[in-house]
């Protein structure tokens, strides 16, 4: 392997691949190093018994029709020089937020959501419209006089705690690394990506996007090495000088772009203590069950694309209490079949995915036998919760279930390297990507743009800012 590159990128997830494409487009000598044998990072896929399962992607947010000016998706495609059609984005049917005694439907046309809120919360609709207008026009990176607490900002317009919680539930589940509250700028970015823009998915799932990015990067001459974990980032006089791989070999670089996470990256640096960044480690992890049927969800009477649910009196988005493994009172139900794939196009099998918050430390403390037994227990429990929220099944589940799987915070930690299995990373984001070293920058989750589109934009903007514009 060549021993010096202009830029080394740590991690072949969405951010790393997008950054790699930008740098390769500019003719830079760039290498992406990835510890695992598959690209995608938090949004990847795996095979089991010949069947491919997506991890991460329920829905790609930020969906807009082709050519919609000034939106993140359009900017992203232009920056990566990827044609819109290549993503095979198929819009959702419709989704809903399901709370005790109240449901709000939404789809990719904001008018539906607005009318649902007007019907369910007639006294709140003016406040909701004012909030929506503020979110639409907000400069999400420069809030000025508006409180940075999203809860405080939303409460200026919404006085009914039920509606407040119903708005926060999907926004938090799709990208808050903070417990209970989030940054208002982050809230605005997520709100736009969910409600003003919308959900879509390629028929073949996240691997369509990963393959597209890999192929583009390769066609531009970018180098990518798999099974090449980074053991250390060495530095001299405040500058990163080299990375040491797990196998002991050394690669030097002018610039290093790390998508490993803020704390995770700091702890790779030889000039930092082993417990660096202890106050900025993410606390939120998740579990997900996947069930495969030999029928379509619609055959059971289930047409929703995504359901964000909460069954408790107040919605609680926070780490699961120490004595519990899973908090089944809220979560996300997803039917990957329920997108508008077009005439004659559909996934062959039916899929049901259910996500809920889970306790990383508790899962990791279990011995192998208990771990497996608890997976079975919580799979059943989450199925039971789900069935309580869905219209009554028209077919017998047990007859048509042909496979199932479940991942836990332990799985997330193992495959993404995120401390605590924290999917959305550190609560404190580093928006300019800078670190304590002059030429080491962060991109991806901990830079603060979330979701698949956000992650790619993060890679693009950090590559532009710190490498192509010279910092």
């Amino acid at each position, binding site marked *: 392997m060549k021993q010096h590159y202009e830029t080394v990128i740590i991690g072949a997830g969405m951010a790393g691949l997008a950054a790699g494409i930008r740098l390769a487009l500019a*003719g830079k000598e760039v290498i992406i190093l990835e510890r695992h044998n598959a690209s995608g990072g938090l949004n990847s896929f795996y095979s089991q018994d010949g069947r491919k399962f997506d991890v991460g992607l329920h829905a790609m947010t930020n969906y807009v029709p*082709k050519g919609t000016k000034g939106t993140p998706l359009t900017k992203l495609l232009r920056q990566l020089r990827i*044609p819109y059609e290549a993503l095979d984005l198929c819009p959702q049917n419709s989704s809903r937020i399901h709370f005790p005694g109240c449901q709000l439907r939404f789809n990719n046309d904001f008018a539906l959501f607005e009318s649902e809120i007007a019907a369910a919360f007639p006294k709140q609709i003016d406040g909701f419209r004012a909030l929506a207008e503020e979110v639409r026009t907000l400069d999400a990176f420069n809030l000025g006089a508006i409180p940075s607490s999203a809860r405080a900002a939303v409460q200026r317009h919404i006085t009914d705690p039920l509606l407040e919680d119903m708005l926060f539930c999907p926004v938090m589940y799709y990208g808050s690394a903070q417990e209970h509250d989030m940054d208002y700028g982050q809230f605005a970015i997520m709100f736009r990506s969910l409600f003003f823009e919308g959900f879509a998915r390629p028929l073949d799932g996240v691997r369509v996007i990963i393959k597209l990015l890999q192929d583009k990067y390769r066609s531009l001459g970018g180098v990518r090495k798999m099974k090449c974990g980074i053991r250390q980032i060495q530095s001299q006089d405040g500058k990163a000088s080299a990375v040491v791989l797990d196998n002991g070999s050394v690669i030097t670089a002018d610039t290093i772009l790390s998508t490993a996470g803020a704390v995770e990256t700091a702890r790779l640096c030889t000039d930092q203590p082993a417990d660096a960044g202890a106050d900025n480690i993410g606390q939120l992890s998740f579990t997900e069950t996947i069930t495969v049927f030999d029928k379509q969800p619609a055959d059971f009477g289930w047409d929703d694309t995504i359901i964000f649910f909460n069954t408790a009196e107040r919605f609680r988005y926070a780490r699961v209490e120490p004595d519990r493994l899973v908090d089944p009172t809220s979560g996300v139900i997803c039917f990957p079949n329920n997108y508008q794939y077009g005439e004659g196009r559909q996934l062959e099998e039916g899929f049901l995915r259910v996500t809920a918050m889970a306790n990383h430390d508790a899962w990791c403390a279990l011995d192998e036998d208990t771990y497996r037994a608890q997976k079975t227990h919580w799979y059943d429990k989450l199925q039971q919760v789900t069935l309580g929220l869905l219209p009554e099944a028209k077919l017998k589940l047990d007859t048509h279930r042909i496979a199932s799987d479940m991942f836990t915070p332990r799985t997330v930690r193992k495959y993404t390297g995120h401390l605590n299995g924290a999917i959305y990373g550190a609560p404190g984001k580093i928006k300019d990507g800078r670190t304590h070293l002059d030429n080491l920058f962060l991109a991806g989750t901990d830079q603060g743009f979330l979701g698949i589109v956000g992650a790619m934009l993060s890679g693009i*903007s950090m590559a*532009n800012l710190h490498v*192509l*514009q010279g910092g």
Partner: protein
Amino acid sequence: MTEDQVKQIVIDIINEIAPDEDTTDLKPEVNLRDQMDLDSMDFLDIVMELRKQHGIEVPEEDYPQLASLDSCGAYLTPMFNAK
């Protein structure tokens, strides 16, 4: 090389980096950003392609010189002819 030829080179680059923009009736004296949906990231790409395709280096402090087709022509033509 004439200013018109240089302007055509810039239009070709815009067509390449922003294929969804219509460049057929661009007014040469009007700012490109007022006529098309281009942002600072797109201008970075114009600079990138000038370097890659033509070996022309535009330093960051001169990016404002690329505001309109006319200013591109005036600024870039001597650089092309000095190659």
